[in-house]
């Protein structure tokens, strides 16, 4: 998504408005600040009335509690967001406690998504200014309360370490002692935020608050929920999308010790048992005959052909600069290529699961979700209840990556629970998880360019077709055939291209659902644009870094990360035979990133990524250790996809089943990763996903450097890389 544009727009208007912060007395004593985080592009117009969606409470005990809409799924949000408040409020990070926001779409809207969700690497971008403003406002009120009590000028008082100090006399009052008084203070005027050189916490590595429980086994994920009397269910869903159960023989399953009940749905069968062992054993003995329905013969090739066909005609214009057709006609050299990326599963380590207790008039749910209000709404629909009758308990997330923005599993679990007396935990086997995921879409791209006599690009034409997740997930954001996600990384390139024309055609594949997947639109677009940019450099017989740099005069931050990565990677230094370096550069999620991959290709085609060097400019760094962790993680995630990731359909069925056929990168394959951060005080950019989209083109460009073989399709086909004898 072009969040940068949205963010700068909102920060110029809504974010800085003091009217979007209110303060008052908390129920039970203390000071409460309500703040309104601005909405996304679809609701860019500022609401007339004040509608807070995050709350900070300072209790009489001095504890600071933040209730907010973002969830922790490994990205460090629960540590870095409280740092913003602690910084301005002048308290120790340990004094800030976070509470999961309960589902309430109206209260806890994600400012940039416009819905209650954590995704698109935007938690920090949304929270950056409003939470610091709230911290500063609270500090000002606490200082005013102290000055009032002492009968002194507030200017002679200073806030530090959760206390207000009267500097001339050394008198002190704690925030807890002042919270009630502060709540009665008149609303403060404009509050100055600290300048970056005054930061004490922001920019320093903070220990993550969720780590200890994740090291001693006490962390509780959705799959660990155990409401009293819970039964465990596992399920078989129609292997073909749109199919249904034709016949079922459940006699043998019922005879399995521990099996309590068989639940038959239209398109699935679940076995409810005392434990998962019995449920799985029961499931294995079921004889289910499926009516596969209209997708019975569907294959991935059919979908690829439909998309290929779709790219022959015109589509929605995502960006047009100059006149690409005219420039192309005058080009000295013309290049064209077709790129394709496959469907991908999320394969979160915690398999899909959802625990439901349906009690007729109400429904209680335990799970880990990136979008709890969505869970509540869809559970209510499945349960036939009003949303307020659905209670959702959110948990830690054993891998989100976009999978847990979806509610298909919730609806399924509620359908099952409606037939079960008491709470039931529905656990997907790994095979069900992979075969009934909602997948990163398949995309088919046609791209062409024209070079002038010196080899520089004067025309760039790109048209692609595939699914729009936004169109289904947040329909108001899909307008005129476009959405802010699907084209990110294909438009607003860092490069100065005088004539550029980019078109996108939404084509929803039949028989296979699609969903957001870590690094979303850029996961596809950056592979295409950076692979093709490498092709242009090669056609111009120029160095891949120098060629790119020549196009970056108007984008100094992009140029800086490119130069940094080249220097640190030893770009241009000699390498052994069949070892190559490849570069990629991107500006997505409001973050500038360049990567150099060093790849070795054996004579039988085996690819080994030896080293990845990454330079990043993500603006102000809040928690540098989290930035490094996220880049390390995102690179491994992207490498898995580049090397192995592929979901394919045959006879309407997903062919991959478990980690043997849907491989995940392992430690013995993990490259060394070096990260170099550009320090500045620009607003923070997204960090959770950028590393993923940048790595695939760096690797395929390195393979080109090592072998001369250009790969335009993922995953990497190692048979094509075998050296002929």
């Amino acid at each position, binding site marked *: 998504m072009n969040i940068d544009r949205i963010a700068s727009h909102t920060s110029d208007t809504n974010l800085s408005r003091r009217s979007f912060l209110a303060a008052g007395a908390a129920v039970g004593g203390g000071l409460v600040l309500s703040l309104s985080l601005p909405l996304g592009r679809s609701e860019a117009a500022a609401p007339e009335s004040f509608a807070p969606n995050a709350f900070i409470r300072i209790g009489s005990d001095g504890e600071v509690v933040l209730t907010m809409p973002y969830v922790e799924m490994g990205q460090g949000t629960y540590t870095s967001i409280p740092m913003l408040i602690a910084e301005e409020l002048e308290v120790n990070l340990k004094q800030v406690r976070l509470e999961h926001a309960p589902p309430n779409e109206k209260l806890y809207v994600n400012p940039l998504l416009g819905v209650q969700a954590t995704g698109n690497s935007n938690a920090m971008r949304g929270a950056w200014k409003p939470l610091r403003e709230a911290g500063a406002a609270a500090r000002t009120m606490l200082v005013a309360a102290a000055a009032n009590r002492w009968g002194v000028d507030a200017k002679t008082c200073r806030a530090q370490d959760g206390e207000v100090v009267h500097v001339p006399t050394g008198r002190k009052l704690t925030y807890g002692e002042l919270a009630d008084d502060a709540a009665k203070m008149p609303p403060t005027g404009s509050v100055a935020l600290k300048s970056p050189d005054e930061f004490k916490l922001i920019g320093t590595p903070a220990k993550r608050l969720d780590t200890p429980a994740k090291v001693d086994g006490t962390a509780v994920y959705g799959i660990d929920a155990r409401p009293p009397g819970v039964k465990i269910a596992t399920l078989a869903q129609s292997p073909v999308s749109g199919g249904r159960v034709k016949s079922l023989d459940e006699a043998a399953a019922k005879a399995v010790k521990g099996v309590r009940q068989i639940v038959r749905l239209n398109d699935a069968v679940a076995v409810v048992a005392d434990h*998962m062992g*019995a449920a799985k054993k029961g499931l294995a003995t079921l004889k289910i005959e499926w009516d596969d329905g209209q997708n019975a013969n569907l294959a991935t090739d059919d979908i690829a052909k439909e998309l290929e066909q779709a790219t022959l005609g015109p589509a929605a214009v995502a960006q047009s600069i100059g006149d690409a057709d005219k420039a192309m006609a005058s080009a000295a050299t013309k290049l064209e290529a077709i790129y394709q990326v496959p469907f991908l599963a999320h394969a979160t*380590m*915690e398999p899909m699961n959802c625990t439901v207790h349906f009690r007729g008039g109400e429904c209680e749910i335990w799970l880990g979700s990136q979008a709890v209000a969505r869970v509540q709404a869809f559970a209510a629909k499945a349960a036939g209840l009003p949303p307020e009758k659905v209670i959702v308990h959110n948990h*830690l997330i054993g891998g989100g990556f976009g999978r847990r923005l979806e509610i298909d599993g919730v609806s399924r679990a509620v359908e099952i629970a409606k037939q079960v007396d008491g709470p039931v935990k529905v656990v997907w086997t790994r095979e069900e998880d992979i075969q009934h995921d909602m997948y990163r879409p398949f995309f088919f791209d046609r791209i062409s360019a024209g070079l002038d006599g010196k080899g520089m690009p004067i025309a760039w034409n790109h048209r692609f077709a595939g699914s729009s997740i936004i169109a289904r997930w947040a329909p108001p954001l899909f307008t005129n055939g476009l959405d802010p996600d699907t084209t990110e990384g294909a438009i607003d390139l860092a490069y100065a291209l005088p004539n550029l024309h980019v078109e996108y055609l939404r084509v929803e594949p039949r028989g296979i659902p699609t969903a957001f997947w870590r690094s979303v639109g850029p996961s596809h677009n950056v592979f295409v644009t950076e692979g093709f940019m490498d092709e242009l450099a090669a056609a111009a017989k120029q160095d891949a870094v120098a060629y790119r740099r020549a196009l970056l005069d108007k984008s100094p931050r992009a140029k800086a990360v490119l130069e940094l990565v080249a220097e640190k990677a030893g770009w241009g230094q000699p390498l052994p035979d069949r070892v190559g370096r490849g570069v990629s550069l991107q500006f997505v999620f409001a973050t500038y990133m360049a990567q150099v991959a060093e790849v070795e290709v054996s004579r039988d085609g085996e690819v080994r990524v030896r080293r990845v060097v990454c330079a990043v400019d993500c603006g102000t760094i809040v928690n540098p250790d989290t930035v490094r962790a996220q880049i390390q993680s995102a690179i491994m995630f992207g490498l898995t996809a580049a090397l192995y990731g592929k979901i394919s359909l045959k006879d309407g069925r997903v062919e991959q089943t478990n*980690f043997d056929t849907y491989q995940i990168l392992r*430690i013995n394959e993990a490259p060394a990763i070096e990260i170099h951060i550009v320090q500045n005080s620009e607003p923070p950019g997204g960090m959770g996903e950028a590393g993923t989209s940048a790595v695939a083109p760096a690797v395929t460009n390195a393979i080109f450097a090592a072998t001369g073989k250009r790969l335009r399709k993922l995953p990497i086909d190692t048979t094509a890389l075998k050296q002929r004898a």
Partner: protein
Amino acid sequence: MAFTVNINGSPRSVDVDGDTPLLWVLRDVLGMTGTKFGCGMALCGACTVHIDGTATRSCITTIDSIGDSKVTTIEAIGATPAGAKIQQAWLEHEVPQCGYCQSGQIMSASALLASNPHPTNTDIDDAMSGNICRCGTYVRIREAIKLAAQASGKAG
């Protein structure tokens, strides 16, 4: 059928079929949810426990195969010298992200360190390649194991 198994030093009795994997006895019957389900086929290592000190995938270890052996899980690994060092190193290097696979990672790493106090990179790869981390924390897992090994060195 009833089985009595020694788990973390205590005898625990359960009444399940003999072919029930230990994983489900731990998680669903005994409520010890620190051990995680990932694949059910010994492909990912999330369910790793120790059986007589050896890292073992509990998802394919049937309850009737355990006999008198001693089962150790993430809930008790901190009581072993190697386990304590590994957990400390994990904290110092901030290894976990989503954290779901980390019980299994820590069990595999603890078994490695207990049997090999100074593992080489190859030793680490060999011992840890059965444990998948979808968040890709491998860089830190390597660093943390090396840190724990240094701690072993200092201890003696």
